[in-house]
């Protein structure tokens, strides 16, 4: 729980900073993939592992995955259709047969229409989500954050000793 909270605070802090735009966008894109995948599968696990080995904002990934998980079911019909279309493609059948008979690969559950459909769509759309997220973060910082920094409330908070103490603390231990 502490880990999750720390990641969430990290996300808010990074969002409100001037750096880490790529990390945030990558986190949202990875969260998109995790959220769209219906069940735990090998590829989900690999994507999840990437969160720890690459500098991707984990908080952003969690929030993104949480959000997309809620709306993913709306696209299940599309995923199913796409998955069926791919899996029933005659020319790909030898490939799928080979994959089906390979070790480890069957753990991806690629032979399921929704897994296949959601996987293809989420992987294809993930770069778009990445760049879209990047634009959104940039826009947020320019439009929302700058305006917020200009408000009296923000200035008042910044002037408090508590904020000063937190700023110093964050510089050394953050």
């Amino acid at each position, binding site marked *: 729980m502490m880990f999750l909270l720390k990641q969430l605070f990290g996300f808010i802090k990074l969002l409100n900073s001037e750096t880490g735009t790529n990390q945030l966008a990558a986190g949202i894109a990875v969260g998109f993939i995790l959220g769209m995948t219906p069940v735990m599968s090998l590829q989900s696990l690999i994507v999840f592992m990437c969160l720890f080995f690459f500098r991707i904002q984990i908080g952003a990934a969690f929030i993104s995955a949480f959000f997309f998980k809620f709306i993913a079911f709306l696209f*299940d019909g599309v995923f*199913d259709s796409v*998955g069926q279309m791919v899996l029933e493609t005659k020319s790909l059948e030898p490939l799928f047969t080979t994959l089906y008979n390979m070790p480890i690969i069957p753990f991806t559950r690629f032979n399921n*229409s*929704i*897994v296949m459909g959601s996987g293809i769509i989420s992987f294809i759309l993930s770069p778009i989500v990445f760049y879209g997220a990047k634009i959104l973060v940039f826009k947020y910082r320019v439009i929302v954050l700058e305006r917020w920094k200009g408000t009296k409330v923000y200035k008042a908070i910044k002037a408090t000793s508590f904020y000063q103490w937190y700023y110093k603390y964050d*510089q050394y231990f953050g």
Partner: protein
Amino acid sequence: MNEEIKKIKKKGPIRVEAVIPVTIIFILSYVYFTYYFDRHMKKLFEYVGTQANGAEVNVASVKTSFLKGSFDLNGLQVTDATKPTQNLISLQNIHFSYLWDALLRMKFVVEEASITSIQIYSPRKTPGFVLPPKPASPSKIEAIEAEVMGQLKDEFKKNVLGDLIDIIEGGDPKEQLEIIREELKSEKRVKEMISDVEAKKKVWDEKVKTLSDTSKIKEAEEQVQKITQQKNILEQAKGLKDLGDVLKDVQKQYKDIQKSSKELEGEIKSVTQYPKEIEGLIKEDVASLKDRFKVPEIDFKDMAMTLFAKEFLGYIAQARKYQALAKEYIPEKKQEEPLIPPPRKVGKNYEFPVLKGYPLFWLKKAAISSKGTKDTYSGEITGTLTNVTTHPKMIKIPLKLAFDGDFPGLNIRGVHGLITVDHTQSVAKQSADFSIKAFLIPEKLFVNSDKMKFGISNATGSTQIKASLTNNEVDMSWESQILKPSYIVETNSKLAKEMLTNILNGIPTITINGSASGAFKNLNLNINSNLGDELGAGLKREVGAKVTEAKVKIEKMIDEKINAPKNQLMSQLGGNQNLIAQLKNVEGLYKNNEDKIKSEIEKFKKNGQGKALDGLKDKGKKLFKGLKL
């Protein structure tokens, strides 16, 4: 200072700081799986085993190797809950070696497995603890067993030998004759007849004596003589009138005698039917006595069923139990799953041809060996279990369990078993072939009741059981031989004991052939045994001989009892014939007398004495008219 901090915070795309915690996690995992995992597995097996067994289960060690894909369980001891000082079963080693290629496909293929040194009822170093008993509830297995045993028909539960004892006891002529001695109808009737004839004879003796009195005849003769010698006409007329009166008396007496004679003849005629009646009653008595010794029709084929049905059904119940267990753990008919569109969010699973695949679980070969120990029931058994799988249709090889060996502690030699479970085709087939070349039978009671104990002891047996199951239709056969049995016959009836011993001495070898076919719920049972046949034939012979003996004795006894009174009756009936003769004599005398009187009267009439008398009568009448009185 702030610039330095900012410089430190500049990081690349790879999260280097995560390497250390991940490394630590890997090291900790390695340490755990190397040093602690096996111990925890051991504890887990012991706990789960103890809870399942209800008594302490010990495991010496568990060794697992991730890289080799192997599993070893050493020193398994399962405490006997009923006797905690001994183990129910103990194993030296269980070894499993999984195929990595299959594990990477999330399938469990055991290339080689072995279970070595199986010991049954081996002593424990320290007694194992026993868990408090749980409240009993009928298990599913017990219900399955009850279903088969429920077919032990009431007729086969009967104590047929006990019933035969009743028959044999009922057939003892000596005792029976004592019981029926006072019950003979013929004897009773003869006595009645004798008393009847005696009573009648007394009456008739008196009557005949009275009727035989000839004084009246003499009197009539004297009177006739007197009248015929009379000279005086008046006296003659008077004498003629008297003669008429005498004639009337004689005629009346004659009629009485004639009537009595007829009555006596009638009674004698009815009494002469007595011998016939007695003959009939004697026949009835003999028949009723013979009925007492009648041997009821017993189907001696059923006797074999009665003796062995329970045991045979016990084998079938065992087979049914194992078949039910096999059905639960080895799927029988797993049809190809149809491609039914699943509900939303589940998607559709596509099946592709399996080129190099494994079933979810496949035990290719397991070697089994057990060592026999003295004073235990352990055997020297070696065997193999092959092709145990969750998908038999995929591997297309049937499961086989084969074992051979001996149980020296139990004097059982030449145990052979082959169990085949073929679920590779659409119709499942299961078969079992089990045989024992020689086993010792210290004591086996076929009948154990208050009336009698019947069984064998100190015999050597051999048995073979073959069973096959297709589409829930069982076909089972059972062949057994029991050599040189010592028969146990314990009963209070000396006669039954003697009979059974005589019969059984002629049966040096018992053969039992049984078969069962059909559904488990409705089995068609058939058991044949020479014990049943020979026992049946012998009992028929022995009981038949006793009955013949009884018949002869009955007839003799009836003759003895009836002959004396019958002869007495016949002599009395002969006496009655004398009475008739006597009466006939008297009747003849009276008849003669009557004729004599009649002729005298006729003489009178012819000689004119009659006319004179008539003239005198007329004159007398005229005088009376003249007087006009």
